[in-house]
């Protein structure tokens, strides 16, 4: 406040004031240090040892909550790996098995329902056109005449608008290209949802619920571990699987083999073959987000 201190005040008690201000400063510095060093922190910044400790804590907590052995992996990105995804639009039949495999694998809330993959039904005569897309199609049988299907989830952009806008740095791209969220650091402001051109981010409007029997106990700290109410979540290419050399759940479950996954830096990978030999496109390329999710027409 603008209360000008006169020289008189200072001259009267030089020692006590100095001591007091010193103590105050020291206490403030100590409190600041304790908060920064020991308090909760962005998982991005904590050391590997501290991370393993934290992950051990949550492992015990989840095991107790769900009454089963939960493992929470802290596996980091492998050097020389940049994950890429490809989806064959000409094969996809719109069966949505990927949607539900994703829900089960990633412990998405069953009530209210959260889906990280949304399958859009589009008219062949319009082409890829979001204005005429329908994600709530319910025919007796898919695929329907005159329609095709475009499943959309996180495009794992190289220049991700969501990470740029986040005011607390609670979301970032890992070295292997996976865009992740720190559920313990997110303040729930939803800037990322406004910025995402692919509707790939989902907010926990109320506490997510997954029955203990349905919980997938194989977790990663940046992936499918249970999310609290009031934070944003998203597809992580099944980080808990792919960092162990497995395919994402949606790739495994796809009955027509429309989904492909691999290391973009490996010249012999299937994903590189597709990019080099097929007719490839990305969604909303004019926005310059540079997705690592490629759509192609294989047949």
């Amino acid at each position: 406040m603008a209360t000008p201190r006169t020289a008189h005040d200072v001259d009267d008690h030089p020692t006590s004031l100095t001591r007091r201000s010193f103590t105050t400063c020291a206490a403030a510095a100590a409190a600041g240090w304790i908060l920064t060093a020991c308090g909760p922190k962005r998982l991005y910044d904590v050391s590997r040892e501290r991370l393993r400790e934290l992950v051990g804590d949550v492992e015990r907590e989840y095991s107790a909550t769900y009454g089963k052995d939960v493992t929470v992996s802290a596996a980091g990105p492998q050097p020389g790996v940049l994950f890429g995804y490809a989806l064959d639009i000409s094969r996809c039949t719109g069966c949505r098995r990927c949607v539900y495999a994703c829900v089960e694998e990633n412990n998405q809330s069953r009530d209210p329902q959260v889906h990280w993959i949304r399958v859009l039904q589009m008219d062949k005569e319009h082409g890829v056109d979001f204005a005429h897309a329908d994600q709530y199609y319910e025919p007796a049988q898919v695929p329907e005449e005159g329609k095709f299907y475009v499943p959309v989830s996180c495009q794992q952009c190289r220049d991700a608008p969501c990470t740029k806008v986040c005011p607390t740095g609670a979301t970032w791209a890992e070295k292997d290209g996976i865009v992740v969220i720190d559920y313990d650091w997110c303040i729930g402001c939803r800037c990322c949802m406004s910025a995402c051109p692919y509707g790939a981010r989902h907010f926990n409007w109320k506490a997510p619920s997954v029955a203990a029997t349905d919980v997938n106990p194989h977790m990663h700290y940046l992936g499918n571990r249970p999310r609290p109410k009031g934070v944003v979540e998203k597809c992580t290419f099944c980080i808990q699987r792919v960092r162990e050399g497995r395919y994402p759940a949606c790739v495994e479950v796809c009955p027509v083999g429309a989904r492909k996954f691999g290391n973009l830096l490996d010249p012999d990978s299937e994903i590189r073959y597709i990019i080099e030999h097929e007719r490839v496109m990305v969604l909303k390329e004019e926005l310059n987000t540079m997705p690592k999710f490629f759509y192609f027409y294989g047949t």
Partner: protein
Amino acid sequence: MTTLHAFLAFTRSSGRLVLRGDVLYWSWIGLLLLLIASGLAAYVDQLRVGLSLTAMRDPVSWAFYIGNFTFMVGVAAAAVVLVIPAYVYDWKPIREVVIIGELLAVSAILICLLFVMVDLGRPERFWHLIPGVGLLNFPRSVMAWDVIVLNLYLLINLVVVTHVVFSAFRGRHYSLRLVYPLVLLSIPMAIAIHTVTAFLYSGMASRPYWNASILAPQFLASAFSSGPAILLVVLQLLRRFTDFEIKDEAIGKIAELMAYAIFLNLFFHGAEVFKEYYSNTEHSLYTRYWFEGIGTHTTLVPYAWTAVGLQLLALVLFIVPAARRNSVTLNVGAVATYAGGYIEKGMGLIIPGFTPDTLGEIYEYSPTMHELRVAAGVFAIGFLVFTFLLRVAVPILLGQVRLAGTGTQALE
């Protein structure tokens, strides 16, 4: 130590002033307290259950709360309309009412910050934004810029009004060396808070409705019309209920400035509407949703046309000099400007930006009772603070309340 003692006496006197009032005053306070209680109860529910109590969902992830926030940023910024002529051109009649504009800015920023707080999914983690303890994603995130400029603007205005009122309380003239630079600084700051808030939206390429370079000028124009509209009414109320002297000239000048702002605001909107409708691309869908609806989805259409109608009415009333001078038409115009701007920002800026969403889904948003209660509570807190600030500032500035032992002193 004398300053500290004087300040303590100032705080005590302020407390006494706030607790003194007639039936009208206490009914007003009572009404506000009722609204605050209802808002608080709704907010506690929201903390317990989650934001699912609002009508917001993934497709429309920001709505009424953030719309209100945006509108109030404009009201706060509008204090500058008064500050510029008063200090830059040294125009006396307005100079006396600058302090009222600044008190309004303080209350408006408080409302803004509260609207952001009630919109957060994890409000208890707001400290994550504090650099050092937390992490402020500066300069990449425009939201980080907004946090900085809003708090700085609040601080500047708080320092100025506290210093000015406290000086008056001690029977001294405020220090020009302190006030002048701060008031000058508050001019670019007022523009900055609104510009940065506009950039928060217009920087998002994913939402074509906001991704327009005209958004920041449009924000300023609408702010400079709706902010002074409140002041016009407040100043007249002050004139009626206190000894505060406000010249007709000052009110006339504010009304004149508003006429420009209302015209510019409508012109900018017209420019945007022309671009959308004449080019007729897929991106005009959002503007269409606001003005005509899409198919059977027409929730916002009545809001849109009400806003247009009110702003046109305001334009006519403010542009005709005779209507501007007549106190009845002036007040009708002020209310129309305020209501028109409020609807345009509260409902017309955020929601059509999200409808349809980025994948083409149309989710029709309309605020729930819960959201209305929380919002009313937030506004009531702001009005309560504004009432208290006026309650303290006016008698002190008028010299009716003084620190004991200080006579009416000559200026320093």
